[in-house]
């Protein structure tokens, strides 16, 4: 599947972005456009998920996947934190902030995996979009608990409201869950008139979005001064460990092959939108240069190019 992956236009545009970024080309997608594309993709993925649950009804697998996702998002920051402190030599605050990123998930990794797995005949059920939304936030809470353990709760007391708010009402969660509900309420027939924009356009838009992600990842790596070799190695080991754990647990819970693969891909992925914004607010002393370089600069490209086919293969072996 890696060979297939590497000739898919979606991945080729990502590689083009990486190459242009590393070559320091001035190619750039305006921030407003990138945000617009992200909003489109979130609405599309949410709608699709809602419609598919409206079609298939609530199944046991849905409940199992959701519970597994929430538990993994909440628990995986713990081993990550321990590795980041010991091997990564980070202080408590930075280790906790990075761990929260690796417990949470990446929307773009999810969407890309969806398309690549479909290309392999593996249809991921639409409800995984809801699982994705559910997995975004538990890791943030775990990360903050890790950061504050044994500390006298300093200035953090004040912005607590702001943080909970940021965590549960952050734009991407609201849009994903909202579109999911819209899909659920309107159903397949209700959505039909808007389908051309949200279904037909989907893959082409994803190409442009991944072009931008490649540029951003490359520039992030070039612009940082905070990344050590040890942290670079962890930015590859953590998704490997988390992804294997995710696929294993998914298979053990009896999820079918595409669902188990996707659970692994989600646990392997690291957030670079919702969690950085929350951490900047709740742990302003943590260095964004560290967590963004790791999650966006290394883990994201690694997952797109290597992780997705790898966890799909593992699910196939176990399935």
């Amino acid at each position, binding site marked *: 599947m890696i060979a297939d992956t590497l000739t898919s236009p979606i991945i080729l545009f990502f590689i083009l972005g990486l190459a242009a970024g590393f070559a320091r080309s001035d190619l750039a997608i305006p921030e407003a456009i990138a945000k617009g594309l992200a909003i489109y993709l979130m609405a599309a993925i949410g709608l699709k998920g809602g419609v598919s649950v409206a079609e298939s009804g609530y199944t046991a697998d849905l409940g199992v996947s959701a519970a597994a996702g929430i538990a993994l998002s909440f628990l995986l920051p713990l081993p990550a934190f321990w590795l980041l402190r010991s091997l990564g030599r980070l202080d408590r605050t930075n280790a906790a902030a990075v761990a929260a990123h690796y417990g949470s998930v990446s929307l773009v990794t999810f969407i890309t995996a969806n398309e690549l797995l479909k290309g392999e005949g593996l249809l991921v059920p639409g409800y995984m979009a809801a699982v994705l939304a559910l997995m975004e936030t538990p890791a943030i809470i775990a990360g903050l608990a890790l950061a504050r353990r044994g500390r006298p709760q300093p200035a953090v007391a004040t912005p607590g409201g702001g943080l909970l708010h*940021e965590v549960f009402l952050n734009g991407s969660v609201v849009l994903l869950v909202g579109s999911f509900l819209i899909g659920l309420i309107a159903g397949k027939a209700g959505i039909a008139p808007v389908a051309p924009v949200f279904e037909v356009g989907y893959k082409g838009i994803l190409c442009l979005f991944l072009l931008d992600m490649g*540029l951003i990842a490359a520039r992030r790596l070039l612009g940082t001064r905070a990344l050590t070799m040890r942290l670079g190695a962890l930015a590859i080991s953590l998704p490997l460990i988390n992804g294997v754990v995710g696929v294993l647990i998914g298979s053990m819970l009896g999820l079918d092959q595409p669902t188990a693969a996707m659970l692994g891909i989600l646990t392997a992925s690291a957030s670079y939108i919702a969690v950085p914004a929350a951490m900047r607010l709740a742990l*302003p002393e943590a260095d964004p240069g560290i967590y963004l370089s790791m999650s966006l600069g290394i883990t994201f490209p690694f997952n797109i190019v290597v992780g997705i086919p790898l966890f799909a293969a593992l699910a196939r072996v176990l399935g």
Partner: protein
Amino acid sequence: MQTVTRKKIEILADGPLMPRVVAALAEAGIHGHTVVPALSGSGRTGQWSEERLTGAETKQLLWSIASAERADALVQAIAPLLTSHRLLLAITDVEVVRGDRF
């Protein structure tokens, strides 16, 4: 028309931290401000530029005119945040008309 001297406060902060900066202004009794976007920059921790999906590192520049006393109160109120939150603060003397507004 007569002009009087007031203080112009400029604070550079990450987008997600702006609400906290605005809260510090309010504590110091300053209720007017305007925020301007930034595109790129560099400092001791490297360089950044606007083409980032995540707004976590995108700076904004707050711009507020206030009386000298309130500006002083703000410096005291915001001092603890300056280092921990990596803010940049600069205060300038400016001449304004209708000085009673500030």
